[in-house]
């Protein structure tokens, strides 16, 4: 397990940093036309999306949630907001429904698969948070120097 986690972390870090660079370098967007707060907000959204996308790619497409995440990202990019939110499983009330809402693609899965995907999703999320934390720390520490 640790070997795959390591590999996943490396993969994710690579992609994430690449996309970070891409987001930060064209600073034409972040000109003073917008308020500073908005700029940050917008950029944070992009960073968040980039983080999820890079994690989904790093985790591999054999997982249902990664496919759902990537297809959601693709459809969002094209400005079509497909609401595939509750397609398969009719709105399940209670906890299971909440979990379905949290895990990407969860509305289409049945309970057993949902739990399995949740487990993998949780692991990847943990890796993601860890790496993002490290990157943020590094940036904040070097900027404060």
């Amino acid at each position, binding site marked *: *397990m*640790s070997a795959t*986690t*390591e590999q996943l*972390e*490396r993969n994710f*870090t*690579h992609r994430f*940093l*690449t996309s*970070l*660079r891409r*987001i*930060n*370098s064209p600073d034409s967007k*972040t000109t003073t036309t917008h308020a500073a*707060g908005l700029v*940050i*907000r917008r*950029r*944070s*959204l*992009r*960073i*968040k999306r980039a*983080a*999820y996308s890079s994690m989904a790619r790093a985790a591999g497409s054999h997982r249902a949630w990664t496919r759902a995440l990537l297809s959601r990202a693709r459809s969002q990019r094209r400005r079509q907001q497909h609401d595939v939110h509750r397609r398969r499983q009719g709105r399940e009330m209670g*906890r*299971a429904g*909440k*979990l379905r809402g*949290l*895990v990407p693609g969860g509305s289409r899965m049945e*309970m*057993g698969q949902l*739990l*399995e995907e*949740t*487990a993998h*999703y*949780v*692991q990847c*999320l*943990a890796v*993601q*948070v*860890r*790496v*993002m*934390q*490290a*990157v*943020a*720390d*590094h*940036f*904040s*520490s*070097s*900027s404060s120097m």
Partner: protein
Amino acid sequence: MDRASFLPPPPDFHYADSAALLDPAAAKWHHHPYHYHDAEQQQQQRLQYNFHQQQQEVGSLGDDYMGCVLNGFHGDGGDGGLGEVVEMSRSPSSSIQLKPDPGFFANGWPDFAPVGNHVYGISRTSSCPPTAAESSSPPAMETPAAASVVDGSKKRKLDKPQQRSPKVVAVDENGESKTKKVKAGCGDGGDKKSSVSSSSSSSKNKNKSVKKENSGGDSSSKENNSSKVTHEVQKTDYIHVRARRGQATDSHSLAERVRREKISERMKYLQDLVPGCNKITGKAGMLDEIINYVQSLQRQVEFLSMKLAAVNPGMDFNIDSLFPKEAVASGGNNFPAMGMSSSSSDMAAAYLHLNSLQQQLLGCSGLDMGMTADLGLRRTISAPITNPETETFIDSSCFPLQQQASIWDADLPSLYQVAFDQARAASFPSQQFAGTERGKKMETLKRSSS
């Protein structure tokens, strides 16, 4: 009796007793006119061979005796459903409807005439340890005894399905085959009252050939069961389920039970993943914990992305240097290979940043800076806190940075456990934030920690 004709028992043939057990039977069989309609050597040999290797050969030797043997034996193609499950023990008068698996019985065993009491006599004399458990249940009739003997052999067969024939009831072939798999073995006698195992197909193919088993019912009903042995296609894979004592045995409830066990297994796995779930029993509580955990992780991601967005503009030049280093985050030995994408002018800066970041990420061995660096990191860590539990997640994220060496070895669950415990002792530091959102979160943090 010709011993010579006996094939040597296979090396994995555990129950040597049965050999002795079968000898008198064989002798009896020999002499008994019923069983050898024609005193064909071949048949005799096969018969004896069959006795010895009941595991593989499921032959229709006799209604009741071999009928019992055949119970749950065979396999059609791997996990093949017990389509050809034989019915147990019935009255001698009934005839076995056995359609033996062609793979098994290369020589189609002739359907022996009903044996009558001889079989029972034989089986009663045999005493096989595995059947001790079975025989504990008072045999209402003789057949249960025979059944129990056969049971032992059946279990044996189930013990080593693979060696005999690929089509034997696979104890657990598919990925799906959990739990119920016939826990072959004489050990679990409690469940093995019934010699019949029922199988339920996986959810994929509802093609079931379920052998009705009346595990909870009276033993006398056992012999009254007579289900057709249907010739099942070998290539389907089934989940083999054994209905437990006192439980419903129809295919639906079996499938339900398989599903439920699958879900509970996954919940247990999740319990290890999510920190702080050890005390929680019950699906609802666990689900709540899981939901909270996922939500907190997602909140952290959002928070960190906001932080990165705020912090980043000053970091452009660092990213390039950072990039190669982070790409090999786990390998400290990759240091020399680091500067592949950065120009020589950046190398110095790169190494500087590499160093600091590496210390954080790799937790290089000399990292007993432990608490100091920990606090330093924590100061910069800003995380949304809504409940004390999320504290642990924050701390857990900083711990890995330091104890990297151990992290890669330790599994995530243990890691988070450590973090969880340590976080409880540690007080959450206050941090400076910029930006409204973070300020808000800081407030909630202060509120909760106060």
